[in-house]
């Protein structure tokens, strides 16, 4: 196949307010090639592609398709130039079927013309151009033709099946979107663009939500499309996938073009350097978990959703101090509900969540125990002295014991158990349990988007202090320290949180939860949508917490990170535990099999 230039972006610039999303970016695309658009978060990849898809309009610069200068002012325009985009967040109507989603938004004039053609065809068949029926059969046929309003879904289904056969997709056109898995939805989005006859297909982070097996399938399809002469642009963060699939790689950094390289001439290290600007260590340091004390115990947990379906089914596990327990699973398999049930946000249908509070070196007192009890417990070897040596009170006179107890020299370790079922987050907090939780939905649950950073700091602590009034000073100090320590890019602490970029929002949320001095720390997808640097900041923070003895539950989607960061990994499939494995002894393939509910 001859390589022809199909698309050229020349010096594209786009600003949002004061933020430069793209400045002077140029890009070439040939037919039958896969181009990866690589860059950290906020480097302007998606904005650039949105310009191409007609969602944004560039401030300056020009677009040439097949050598002709064009201006794309709407997604409809983009389809006219045979450009289609699959967005990261799918744009589908849940209650519609696959076919209906495909034809929605198409020009209905097309259908009218087809109907007209049908009329003329019938009329010519009966040799009667006057428009009124001469025979009964003709009338019946004309009536049928008149009833064909809207879209011809049957033909669209056939067309979809054709596309599926050509490129190797599997999709049932009659299935409703709400019944589809993420992978099916993505397939549907791709078919939607192919149905409109696109030659240039843009995929925005297509692998973010897929299992390794599904990714493989997707890549095969993409390769088939490439063979059919279509050009594909893939936006991504993931370097190994870039190396696997693409022909050429264009790297953006902070809205500017760093360069375009051929895959054969480059390496992961070079690409990282281009993306980040300096070489960063791709390894996450993982220390051995220190303590072995149980911190949190989940027993036969069942959670039902609003429709009464069990979304968590008999889940049991325990969390030790100073360890990171990773939770893997295809998204929507109960991760969200599990964390919310532990945090007290979702009601627990059945089972127990037990918190163990280890109180070390607590002095015994006569307030709680009598002399007799103390003697008995001492015989059992419960007590120790200030140096940690066991204390035995045999043959010690009572007077001596009394003075020792009063001086606080006899110590013991206590394991206090607390049941968290049926308690809301406030009640858990009032028990003195610092249960920090970074939910998946940052602005919808963890933070209040319209409030500023200071006010968001107050969410956890606003009840502190007596009287009806709020204390503004401490949250302000916390906010200031988070901004400086985590390098949150914001003009001041008085900025509404929703106006910050995704990474900074996450830093504010994680910072607040760490400032809460947690003993159990639950994080859901903390690096989703974050660039490499911010991700590593988060990993380091988590590791630091781990060293302080905090028990961490980490729900993640990037299996490489899970394998490198966690100590143990719990795999969820359909709300059930399909395995709890040692992260040091398992590989990605095995994990993928567990995620699909297969046993090892």
């Amino acid at each position, binding site marked *: 196949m001859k390589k022809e230039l199909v698309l050229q972006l020349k010096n594209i610039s786009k600003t949002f307010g004061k933020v430069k999303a793209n400045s002077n970016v140029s890009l070439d695309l040939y037919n039958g090639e896969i181009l990866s658009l690589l860059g950290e978060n906020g480097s302007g990849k998606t904005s650039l592609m949105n310009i191409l898809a007609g969602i944004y309009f560039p401030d300056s610069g020009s677009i040439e398709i097949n050598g002709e200068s064009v201006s794309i002012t709407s997604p409809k325009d983009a389809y006219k130039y045979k450009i289609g985009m699959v967005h990261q967040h799918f744009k589908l109507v849940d209650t519609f079927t696959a076919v209906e989603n495909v034809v929605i938004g198409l020009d209905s004039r097309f259908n009218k013309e087809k109907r007209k053609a049908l009329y003329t065809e019938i009329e010519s068949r009966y040799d009667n151009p006057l428009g009124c029926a001469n025979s009964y059969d003709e009338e019946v046929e004309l009536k049928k033709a008149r009833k064909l309003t809207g879209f011809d879904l049957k033909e669209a289904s056939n067309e979809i099946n054709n596309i599926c056969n050509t490129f190797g997709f599997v999709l049932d056109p009659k299935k409703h979107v709400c019944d589809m898995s993420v992978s099916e939805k993505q397939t549907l989005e791709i078919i939607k663009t192919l149905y409109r006859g696109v030659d240039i297909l843009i995929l925005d982070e297509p692998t973010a939500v897929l299992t390794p097996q599904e990714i493989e399938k997707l890549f095969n399809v993409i390769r088939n499309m490439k063979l059919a002469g279509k050009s594909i642009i893939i936006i991504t963060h993931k370097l190994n996938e870039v190396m696997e699939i693409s022909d050429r790689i264009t790297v953006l950094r902070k809205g500017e073009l760093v360069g375009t390289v051929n895959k054969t001439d480059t390496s992961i290290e070079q690409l990282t350097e281009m993306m980040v600007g300096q070489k960063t260590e791709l390894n996450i340091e993982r220390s051995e978990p220190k303590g072995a004390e149980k911190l949190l115990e989940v027993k036969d947990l069942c959670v039902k959703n609003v429709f009464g379906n069990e979304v968590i089914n008999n889940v049991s596990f325990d969390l030790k101090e100073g360890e990171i327990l990773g939770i893997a699973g295809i998204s929507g398999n109960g991760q969200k509900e599990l964390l919310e049930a532990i945090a007290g946000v979702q009601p627990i249908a059945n089972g127990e969540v037990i918190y163990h509070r280890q109180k070390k070196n607590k002095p015994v007192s006569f307030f709680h125990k009598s002399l007799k009890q103390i003697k008995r417990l001492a015989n059992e070897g419960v007590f120790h002295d200030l140096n940690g040596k066991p204390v035995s009170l045999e043959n010690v006179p009572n007077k001596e014991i009394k003075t020792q107890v009063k001086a606080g020299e006899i110590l013991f370790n206590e394991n206090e158990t607390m049941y968290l079922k049926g308690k809301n987050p406030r009640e858990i907090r009032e028990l003195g349990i610092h249960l920090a939780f970074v939910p998946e*939905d940052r602005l919808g649950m963890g933070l209040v988007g319209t409030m500023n950073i200071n006010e968001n700091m107050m969410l956890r602590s606003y009840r502190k202090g007596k009287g009806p*009034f709020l204390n503004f000073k401490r949250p302000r100090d916390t906010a200031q320290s988070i901004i400086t320590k985590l390098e949150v890019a914001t003009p001041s602490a008085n900025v509404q949180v929703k106006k910050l970029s995704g990474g900074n929002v996450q830093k504010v949320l994680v910072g607040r939860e760490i400032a809460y001095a947690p003993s159990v720390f639950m994080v859901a997808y903390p690096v989703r949508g974050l660039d490499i640097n911010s991700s590593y900041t988060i990993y380091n923070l988590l590791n630091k917490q781990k060293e302080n003895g905090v028990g961490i539950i980490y729900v993640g989607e990037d299996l490489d990170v899970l394998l490198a960061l966690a100590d143990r990994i719990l795999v969820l499939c359909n709300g059930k535990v399909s395995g709890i494995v040692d992260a040091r002894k398992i590989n990605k393939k095995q994990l993928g099999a567990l995620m699909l509910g297969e046993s090892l």
Partner: protein
Amino acid sequence: MSEIKVEEKQVNTEHHENKKPREKLFHITKRLDVSLKYKIILRVVSILVALVVCAIVLFIFKPGKFGAFFKESFNSLFGSTNKFFNILYEFAFLLGIAIAILPCFKMKFWNLGGEGQVLMGCLGAALVSKYVGPHVPNFICIILMIICAMIAGGLWAFIPAFFKARFDTNETLFTLMMNYIAMGIVEFTVQLVDPTHGSFAGLTSGVYHTSTNISILISFIVVSVLTVFMYVYLNYTKHGYELSVVGETRNTAKYIGINVKTVIIRTAIICGCLAGIMGYLVVAKQTSINKDIIGGKGFTSVMIAWLGHMNVIEIVIMAFLVAFISRGSNQVSTKLGLSGSFVQISIAVFLLTILAFEFFLNYEVHFNKQLFSKKKKLEEVKE
């Protein structure tokens, strides 16, 4: 069939090739940061434009009287002491109801029942005044009237809030319909108690001052105190913080363990109680009650609260402007012999114009300068 499709597409592209590439004349982007200076300037401009639009409306009815609107409006403000007090009363009244429904609005509980809650407050106060008043000293009567008004208003807000919290009913419709029930109850009670007058005319107990101007002044002071209270309540107290969290996202409220139901009911009751106090003020000044005594001010106040961005200071300014327009256009319509509807039209036009200007607060319009210069150049070439 697919062949037909391909042909059509070719037609489409050919058709497109004939056209010159389309370029946008302007595009609109969302504003991220709005400086205070810009906000103030925009507001002042919008108010001035709104006044001019009102004057244009008058011009349509009475050609040649463009300036009369401004003249009479300002006359209504500074013309005489009585006129000034009339504006003051209107202002206090509108502001009071707007402040009363503000916490509900901040919680995104769309309480359109200000009218009904004030009316129920009126009824409570009037009943106490009529039946208890003659038997107790005046100041005790006043206290009893206030308490009773607060209970009645609070109850009227509690009912929809309870159903919202318990069954998640739509509060907008619920509170709206409660207004008409309140009117019905007042009408019924009035017919029952005082069928000859059709109102509890001439209530004497519980009136704080016989002079109208001084009683207006007292109303104004009470409303000012309520306004300050509300400002502190919303911005500096734990309750205020809780209700704004509940208003923004229910999920966040659950996430930190705020009891959403309690907060909804508590806030609605506070709204109702404040509305009840406003009801007392109305009865004490008018010394009578009938079902139309509020005259739709409860609804106007909803718009004031909304256009004031749920911000106490902005609401004070908006309330004053609406009071000014209302009294001003009233003066205009009597002077020029227009019907009473002119007042309603002016208020509506005024609020609508300000609402339209909100667009520039949220969005920015960028014009394609190149295109303009091209056009100019073309014109130059033609010349």
